[in-house]
């Protein structure tokens, strides 16, 4: 019984990832946005000679692109199921299995995009700290927190009549403090990179992530039933 519950989770996750790959327009749109934003930055800053721009500006743009990616991937994963397939899943899966499956599939795609963006920025701007434990730790915590938050918000928005707008409207006030934590962590990243990685600098980010995850796990089973 236990093994079938666990394997159900992995099967569902595999299904979600396969669905993402079959409906490539979402993934393609996000990847294109990442590439286009990177090229614009390259053209506007490097090619035109404005290399004196502060690294914090580049971090802000990085996270703007990531927000778009996360909102897009979480919304599309829930809206895909909105027309009746979710009823089928209700009869099959425990709500938390459904939630973690959606969360993990969105996390896989958004981590892919964040790694792609990191590599591009590392090459274009030659920020050596982008290939470091601290950068990846902040990036992972930030992406995980935002994805959890927007997965929960998308699950609520998919039940309404104006889901696209509401996913953004509901999510942004909650995402802004998380963004502030992330950007605050990144603003001193040069120093932290020189000193070496320490977990305490991530503590506020981790606590916020934990808060969002626990709220989501508590509330999602209540939201999904019809």
């Amino acid at each position: 019984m236990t093994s079938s519950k666990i394997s159900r989770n992995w099967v569902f996750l595999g299904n979600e990832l396969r669905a993402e790959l079959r409906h490539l327009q979402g993934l393609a749109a996000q990847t294109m946005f990442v590439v286009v934003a990177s090229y614009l930055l390259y053209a506007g800053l490097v090619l035109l000679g404005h290399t004196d721009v502060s690294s914090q500006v580049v971090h802000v743009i990085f996270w703007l692109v990531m927000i778009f990616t996360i909102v897009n991937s979480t919304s599309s994963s829930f809206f895909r199921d909105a027309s009746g397939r979710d009823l089928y899943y209700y009869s099959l899966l425990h709500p938390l299995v459904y939630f973690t499956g959606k969360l993990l599939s969105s996390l896989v795609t958004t981590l892919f995009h964040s790694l792609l963006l990191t590599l591009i920025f590392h090459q274009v701007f030659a920020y050596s700290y982008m290939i470091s434990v601290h950068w990846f730790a902040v990036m992972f915590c930030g992406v995980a927190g935002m994805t959890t938050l927007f997965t929960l918000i998308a699950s609520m928005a998919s039940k309404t009549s104006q889901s696209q707008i509401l996913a953004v409207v509901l999510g942004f006030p909650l995402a802004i403090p998380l963004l502030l934590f992330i950007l605050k962590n990144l603003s001193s990243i040069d120093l932290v990179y020189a000193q070496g990685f320490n977990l305490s600098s991530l503590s506020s980010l981790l606590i916020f992530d934990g808060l969002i995850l626990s709220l989501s796990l508590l509330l999602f089973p209540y939201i999904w039933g019809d």
Partner: protein
Amino acid sequence: MALATPLSSGIQVNLIEQNTDTLLSVKAHNADFVLGEKTLKLWAHSPDGYYSITDYSIEGSDSLTIPLSNIHYADSSGEVAYLDLVAFTESMGLVGSDNAIPAKAAQRIEDLPSEDISSFSRGSEGFVFPNRRILDETIRNLMFHVTMWFGMVGLLLFGFIYAIKYILGNNLERDLWASLANAVGLGFGILGLLTGMVWAKYTWGAFWVNDAKLNGAGLGVLMYFAYFLLRNSIDNPRKRARISAAYNVIAFVLYIMFIFVLPRLQGVDSLHPGQGGNPAFSSYDLDNALRIVFYPAVIGWTFIGFWIFDILRRMHALNNIN
């Protein structure tokens, strides 16, 4: 009462340049130097004691100037950067201005005898509000802005509790009460932001500053606007109640985090009292006269909020009589 109670006497000190000298310009509030000229006394206060200032000139009934170079003080530690200025007249009593005199500009004299000012008392002016630096007359806003926030948090807590009650019980009336309480709370929140902006304009110089608590409060208002948008976009009453109860829980928990926890974190700058290294709200801003008005005001605003909620509830019930 908040608007009519006078402020106690106080002095405000500024440095002004005149020719080649730097002078201390002392402005009085609710006090008169000319009338009290005979009993006027001034001291510079260092940790070692009070040192009389004899060289000053009275410019008008509410202002006088003191040349900095003729201020004498003693300081055994040698580390003091600023001295306090203490003034006394018969009618005003003892008033002081902290950190008013830059110690470098004054004359430090070894072993200068300090004076005993215990025989001078604070004037008894009846029921007055304290005169705080920067705040001056705007301290009255304490009775509106802060008390309204207290009422708002009470209302939003009520909404949160009823959202949880709905989650546990599926009784649609509880969802209605939660939404009405949140509506009144949101109204108070907007008024609180507006009164805060007016207060900020007069004390901090701008309608909005980059302050953690202001940003948190603004985000909170946005969250509750989103709550009402969510409610308006679902037609089925049970679905609406369920989804909005879930969002209410998230919004309230995060709102409490934004306005209470975040501004108090280490390394977060804040202009609000009680956060970001400022002295705590209760010891800094409340003296006994303020407390007498403040606590009833908090209760009053909370009652007004719940009264408005009750009126809305009854209006809704009357509209829905079939």
